[in-house]
């Protein structure tokens, strides 16, 4: 007997997501046979940006998401650099990386402990009140001393992520939403005192990541090894790369893993479909550089505000696993647990980068080459947010934004079906997931949370062509 289970709202993510799964007995065990994932909130950033002073874009696009605003600040300022034909001085590049790095680490710690952990640990008796109760209680949850260890980590992690925001503010003015990212670089000056203050916190954070976080990940992983074979999804991975290094390379390189083969990334081969998204049919299949967003509320067969981006018409997943995979740092497999492991390991790689960038700062030297708004220009930034590949495309005409386009990672991961009925990565990952108890579909939460969805980002910004 098939059951349709709707989880609305799906909590412990950023933003508004509903999922609907069809569950049926296959070889004696209940499992997901079909899934639909839907973004349920729309703001229309793209239309809001058109007609504005280009310099406002860095500030406005950060408010696409309060968890990963620095990803947008970085991408927007890089796109503006390109359009303004500006190159930041070394300190500007380094300060952008340091604030972005702090934002990544904060996001990943928040994700593991505060968004994900409760799917795996029985917190009854340890966190016995709201918001940690009520909750699903399933027989497979971690309990006993391991549960105490993980809940202890949850509480410690609240302070660690707060410190990471403090680090971001030392250079970035405040967190969330920094005001110091500008075309041409970064307004704040790296004084010796600020470098020292950042370093002191960084050491505390690094110790947490290497000690508590690593240990807690292992504890969780050992209890749930079966999740190495759950939630694979499409099996294709995409990364644009991030964290600009001296000489033009990146800490995380760009790359693709498509149908088992490695390849380069050409942004011209991206198309966004809206076959099952609430936008007019005539706007389907466009590259972001010429994309159009026309909401179509009453459209039949549409079930999401998220579009369906595809690379050469193939579904791709983005995120820490994709970044580590294309770089060669981690290629064990693609699954719920692989995503959690990659996200934690990425914290080490970013931390190593941050230690290096901090040492490379030249105290007291400016981080900005002042710029002026050009009458015309275009800029593209291919970057990464904690959740995966992020692109900003912009055009300037008469010194104003004539077009602004943002393609976010969760648009890739939480996309609905496209015009050719290809399901998105999260939908594919849900199919095949075993469900032990139809009234407590906690396995579905584990699959969805492994992608670290950010819905404010995914229902996003495309320009009016």
């Amino acid at each position: 007997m098939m059951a349709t289970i709707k989880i609305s709202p799906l909590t412990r993510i950023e933003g508004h997501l509903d999922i609907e799964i069809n569950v049926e007995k296959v070889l004696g065990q209940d499992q997901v046979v079909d899934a639909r994932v839907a973004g349920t909130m729309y703001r229309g950033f793209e239309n809001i940006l058109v007609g504005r002073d280009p310099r406002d874009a860095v500030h406005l696009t950060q408010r696409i998401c309060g968890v990963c605003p620095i990803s947008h600040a970085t991408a927007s300022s890089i796109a503006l650099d390109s359009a303004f034909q500006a190159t930041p001085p070394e300190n500007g590049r380094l300060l952008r990386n340091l604030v972005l790095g702090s934002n990544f680490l904060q996001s990943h710690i928040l994700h593991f402990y505060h968004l994900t952990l409760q799917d795996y640990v029985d917190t009854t008796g340890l966190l016995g009140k709201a918001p940690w109760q009520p909750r699903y209680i399933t027989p497979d949850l971690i309990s006993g001393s391991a549960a105490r260890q993980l809940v202890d980590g949850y509480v410690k992690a609240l302070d660690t992520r707060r410190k990471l925001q403090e680090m971001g503010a030392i250079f970035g003015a405040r967190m969330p939403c920094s005001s110091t990212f500008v075309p041409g670089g970064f307004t704040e000056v790296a004084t010796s005192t600020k470098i020292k203050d950042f370093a002191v916190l960084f050491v505390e954070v690094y110790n947490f990541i290497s000690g508590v976080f690593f240990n807690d990940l292992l504890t969780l992983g050992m209890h749930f090894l079966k999740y190495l074979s759950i939630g694979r999804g499409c099996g294709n991975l995409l990364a644009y790369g991030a964290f600009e290094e001296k000489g033009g390379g990146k800490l995380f390189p760009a790359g693709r893993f498509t149908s088992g083969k490695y390849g380069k990334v050409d942004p011209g081969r991206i198309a966004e479909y809206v076959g099952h998204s609430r936008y007019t049919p005539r706007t389907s299949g466009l590259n972001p550089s010429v994309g159009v967003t026309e909401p179509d509320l009453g459209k039949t067969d549409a079930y999401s505000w998220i579009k369906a981006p595809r690379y050469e018409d193939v579904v791709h997943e983005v995120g820490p696993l994709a970044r580590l995979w294309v770089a060669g740092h981690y290629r064990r497999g693609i699954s719920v647990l692989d995503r959690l492991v990659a996200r934690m390991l990425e914290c080490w790689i970013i931390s190593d980068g941050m230690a290096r960038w901090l040492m490379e700062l030249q105290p007291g030297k400016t981080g900005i080459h002042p710029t002026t708004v050009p009458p015309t220009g275009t800029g593209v930034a291919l970057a990464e947010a904690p959740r995966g590949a992020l692109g900003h495309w912009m055009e300037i005409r008469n010194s104003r934004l004539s077009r602004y386009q943002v393609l976010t990672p969760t648009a890739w991961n939480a996309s609905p079906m496209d015009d050719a009925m290809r399901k998105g990565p999260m939908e594919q990952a849900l199919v095949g997931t075993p469900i032990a108890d139809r009234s407590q579909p906690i396995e579905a939460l584990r699959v969805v949370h492994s992608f670290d969805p950010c819905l404010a980002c995914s229902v996003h910004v495309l320009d009016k062509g």
Partner: protein
Amino acid sequence: MKITRRDFIKATSALGISLGMPGWALARAGLDPSSDGGAPPVIWLQGQGCSGCSVSLLNSINTMSIQDLLLNTINLEYHPTLMAAAGSQAVKAAEDRRIKGDYVLVVEGAVPTAAGGQFCHAWDGRTFMDVVKSYGKNASHILAVGTCASHGGIPGGKPDATGARGVKDVLGTTATVVNIPGCPTHPDWIVGTVAHIISYNQAPALDTYGRPLLFFQNKVHARCPERSSPRARSLGEGGCLADLGCKGRETYSDCPVRKWNSSGPNQPGVNWCVEARNPCGGCTEHDYPDGKSPFYEK
């Protein structure tokens, strides 16, 4: 005639209840031993927002740590980002509380009012606009957290295709809504307002935009340490940023004093926009962003 302590408590509780005092306030005053210990239930709804205000609240440490707030000070019975429950279990938690009443309603994010509110759903086919109105009715206090919930914010920026509005606009003039703006808002402003409500069972004194005077009495410019400094001529220079588009003269906030991202209890923040050499963008104001744009022009 001797009156027992028990009778005294019953009598004062009855008086308190007849005055419309919520159960948690009575418990705070030691008057109703059957309630849940004096921590007000909080329902936190999210609409057209970015969760930045929730992320900012998680940074709380100066007035109170976030651990202390969540574990000891409030009962956060609904919050989509933090709560364990999902789907119908989560909605039931919210609905059970709504029916009981006596809660602080917090709204983060703007309310889209165009097309019958269909640009944002709270859960299971119910529009956010509908849910805000429903939950506003039984709340003992309503807080609009962030500029989006206070005044529409960035989603309400031109051309405002979704009719994004603040909570007060949606609930009407009969509702008392405390606006705690900021894009994002500051954790101290939220915690301070909640602390006032817990201590006095009333919202703090508000200005004409519904903002607590505790935090929004002075303009940024009034207490800016750079107001007497020479004017910066280009971005990246220190000094007064008036010529670079600073909106400090038309923005109310205590940013120059409180600053952002405190390092510990009773510590000011480590930095703020003008100190980091970027002009104030006026993010706490009712006309943010359109009335404060372009950010780099006067």
